[in-house]
């Protein structure tokens, strides 16, 4: 008898809320149970229940799966809706994420139409505060006409107060959304046809919106007829009105704090100055390149020494000559040469990550916005262009958010002119060999040239097919000092991604080149690859490039720009005999080289600030590929080669991206147009410098 009385007195509490708002944590805090808690949406995919005593009364707590609405578009939402309709709880605790109030309130508004007593648990207020958001709980309570309790469930803060509210809550909440008259009238008509129950208003609206809800046949039929009579789409009217109400409520109770630090304002006074901004930005980018060169140089030398040692070990082995050639010339000479440039990419990405996370790059975008307008392009087109400096392929996909097809096309045709990181390895090699003392400026100039040609292309195309300018407000973040861990991690991930992504293509290309070099004749120039490359030499001779190996490297460069270095490595170094090394001698060489690299790396720190010197000291005697290139090219020819390499045909992945986005015709146009521009400007560079 006593047990029956206790059971009768038991109160049923349901927790409902969006996914990942802390419902399960709250249940655990209230009841002392140990349900599994996760920091991802959908931890609760079925209803979970627990029993406890709260304020001397027995309470059954039921945790429903995370739902954004009761429209039952997902299995979780269907469970939540069905349980709410079936269980008829004494109280519903609606757990709301204070940091995502507007989205969460949609469900709260629906719950108010269900007719059960609701208590709002405003959770995660601490996280909201870190986002600069503060919710006025009292004002929200007045707006909703429901008790609202602020809490941090994970720390148990506010949980007792919520328990009290949950035990005393009673009475149906008032419906908070007012729909257009026609919808209200239709809803009332349907409610009159339904048996008496608290959820009638919600059910009538669900029926009008076309949701699949369990209703008597006549009600369903009348709902269908009313839907047809309304003349508007009832689903859109109902959902739209709920969202509008949620938005308006959130605006009234939310306080956003955004006070830019004083330091940010002071720095921006200079960096965003109409006249000083651009020179400061250019100086900043120059520093990025200087940093890259200075700090990567010792490690490039070290990786080169590792290659030499490996090649020496292979030469000292008893492997057959053809296998030695394959390993030394194909694998070590090709892939190894590309790997030697991983330090360049790592330090470039390190500098760029710092510039990004510190807030410098977003200022750069702000300044560049003016340049974009000069080219007749919307400011938002600058982001894809910036991405192009990393890799052209995602940059082309990123133009998708631009409204106008012509704007997208123009930016996409400009992107392949921006120097992607794959081209940097070649720039670094040639600049350090042929322009000692000015290598940073040469590489920097190439980056600017690519951007200028891209923008000019867009501007010229805009004359033929102008599009309306659209603009978006730019929000500039406060400056912050990025953590070393984050910066290193980003740089590492990007470098690794480059190596991983390029690895396959490089392997295949280098092996094909090695094979072609070993087919057709005993000397490299007699090989199939040599003959094919020599056929093309007359085309490049006017720009001072007469060595067939340089011309030949441009062919696989179409597959991926990063394989140019690998190809040059195979064709220049492959034929040179390598001195055999014993294992110990090799280890000794490696140790000495590593110590030398560490010392040179430390020396780079004071050099970094040794203005006005803008280039690292040149190696005393360039060895390896650098040494092999020096005698075959005049600096004018080297510049022409670099300009051609910067501007010629985009890599095959970029062409595929262009084809996907704009069709075969525009992809073909890009290939032909870039070839022509590259040839003309390469020739011009040679004639000017010669």
């Amino acid at each position, binding site marked *: 008898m006593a047990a029956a009385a206790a059971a009768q007195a038991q109160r049923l509490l349901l927790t409902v809320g969006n996914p990942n708002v802390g419902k399960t944590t709250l249940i655990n805090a209230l009841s002392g149970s140990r349900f599994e808690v996760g920091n991802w949406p959908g931890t609760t995919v079925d209803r979970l229940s627990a029993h406890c005593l709260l304020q001397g009364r027995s309470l059954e707590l039921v945790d429903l799966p995370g739902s954004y609405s009761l429209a039952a578009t997902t299995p979780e939402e269907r469970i939540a809706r069905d349980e709410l309709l079936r269980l008829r709880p004494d109280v519903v605790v609606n757990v709301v994420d204070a940091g*995502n109030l507007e989205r969460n309130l949609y469900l709260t508004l629906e719950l108010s139409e269900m007719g059960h007593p609701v208590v709002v648990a405003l959770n995660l207020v601490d996280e909201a505060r870190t986002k600069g958001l503060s919710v006025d709980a009292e004002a929200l309570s007045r707006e909703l006409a429901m008790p609202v309790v602020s809490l941090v469930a994970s720390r148990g803060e506010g949980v007792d107060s919520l328990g009290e509210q949950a035990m005393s809550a009673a009475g149906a909440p008032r419906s908070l959304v007012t729909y257009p008259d026609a919808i209200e009238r239709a809803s009332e008509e349907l409610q009159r046809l339904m048996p008496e129950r608290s959820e009638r208003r919600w059910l009538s609206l669900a029926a009008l919106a076309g949701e699949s809800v369990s209703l008597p046949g006549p009600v369903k039929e009348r709902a269908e007829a009313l839907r047809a009579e309304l003349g508007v789409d009832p689903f859109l009217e109902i959902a739209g009105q709920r969202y509008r109400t949620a938005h308006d409520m959130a605006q009234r109770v939310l306080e956003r704090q955004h006070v830019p630090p004083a330091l940010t304002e002071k720095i921006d006074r200079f960096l965003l100055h109409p006249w000083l901004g651009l020179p400061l930005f250019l100086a900043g980018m120059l520093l990025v390149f200087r940093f890259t060169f200075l700090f990567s140089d010792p490690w490039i030398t070290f990786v080169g020494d590792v290659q030499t040692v490996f090649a020496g070990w292979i030469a000292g082995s008893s492997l057959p000559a053809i296998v030695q050639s394959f390993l030394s010339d194909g694998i070590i000479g090709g892939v190894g040469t590309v790997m030697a440039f991983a330090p360049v990419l790592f330090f470039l990405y390190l500098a760029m990550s710092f510039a990004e996370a510190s*807030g410098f790059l977003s200022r750069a975008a702000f300044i560049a916005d003016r340049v974009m307008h000069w080219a007749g392009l919307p400011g938002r087109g*600058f982001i894809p262009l910036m991405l192009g400096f990393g890799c052209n392929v995602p940059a082309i996909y990123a133009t*998708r958010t631009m409204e106008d097809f012509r704007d997208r096309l123009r930016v996409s045709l400009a992107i392949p002119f921006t120097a992607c990181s794959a081209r940097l390895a070649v720039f670094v090699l040639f600049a350090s060999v042929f322009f000692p003392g000015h290598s940073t400026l040469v590489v920097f100039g190439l980056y600017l040239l690519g951007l200028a040609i891209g923008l000019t292309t867009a501007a010229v195309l805009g004359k033929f097919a102008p599009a309306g300018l659209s603009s978006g407000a730019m929000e500039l973040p406060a400056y912050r000092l990025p953590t070393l861990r984050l910066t290193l991690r980003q740089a590492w991930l990007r470098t690794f991604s480059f190596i991983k992504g390029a690895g396959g293509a490089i392997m295949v290309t280098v092996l094909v080149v090695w094979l072609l070099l070993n087919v057709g004749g005993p000397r490299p120039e007699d090989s199939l690859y040599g003959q094919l490359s020599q056929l093309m030499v007359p085309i490049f001779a006017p720009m001072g490039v007469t060595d067939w190996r340089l011309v030949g490297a441009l062919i696989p460069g179409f597959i991926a720009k990063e394989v140019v270095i690998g190809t040059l490595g195979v064709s220049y170094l492959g034929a040179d005999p390598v001195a055999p090394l014993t294992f110990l001698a090799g280890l000794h060489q490696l140790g000495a080289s590593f110590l030398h690299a560490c010392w040179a790396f430390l020396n780079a720190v004071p050099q970094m600030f040794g203005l006005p010197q803008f280039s690292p000291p040149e190696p005393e005697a360039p060895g390896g590929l650098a040494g092999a290139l020096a005698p075959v090219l005049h600096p004018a020819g080297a510049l022409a080669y670099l300009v051609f390499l910067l501007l010629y045909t985009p890599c095959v992945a970029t062409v595929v991206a262009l084809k996907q986005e704009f069709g075969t015709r525009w992809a073909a146009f890009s290939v032909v147009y870039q070839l022509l521009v590259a040839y003309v400007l390469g020739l011009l560079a040679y004639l000017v410098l010669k």
Partner: protein
Amino acid sequence: MIDRLLPLLTQPRTAAELARELSTESAAVEGLLALLAAREYVGKAYDSSPTCGTGCGKCSLQNLCPAKGSEAPFLPVYRLTAKGQEALSKSRTAAG
């Protein structure tokens, strides 16, 4: 909200862009888009780019990037479906 959202979706837009244009939270727009997508008023304008947004981290360009605010690292771009366009023209007709 929906009455302002639908006309914007006649052109491809990301959730973050829509949120900016509607002066609201990205999460709220994503919720609305999910609701509309489930009812087939809205669909993806393109498949997500597998390479976009993979290294966002704490990138300061996020404040300019159209993908900012997306929970997913990719760049889903939404647009009205035929059903959505029909609903839009219906509501325009009803509004006179």
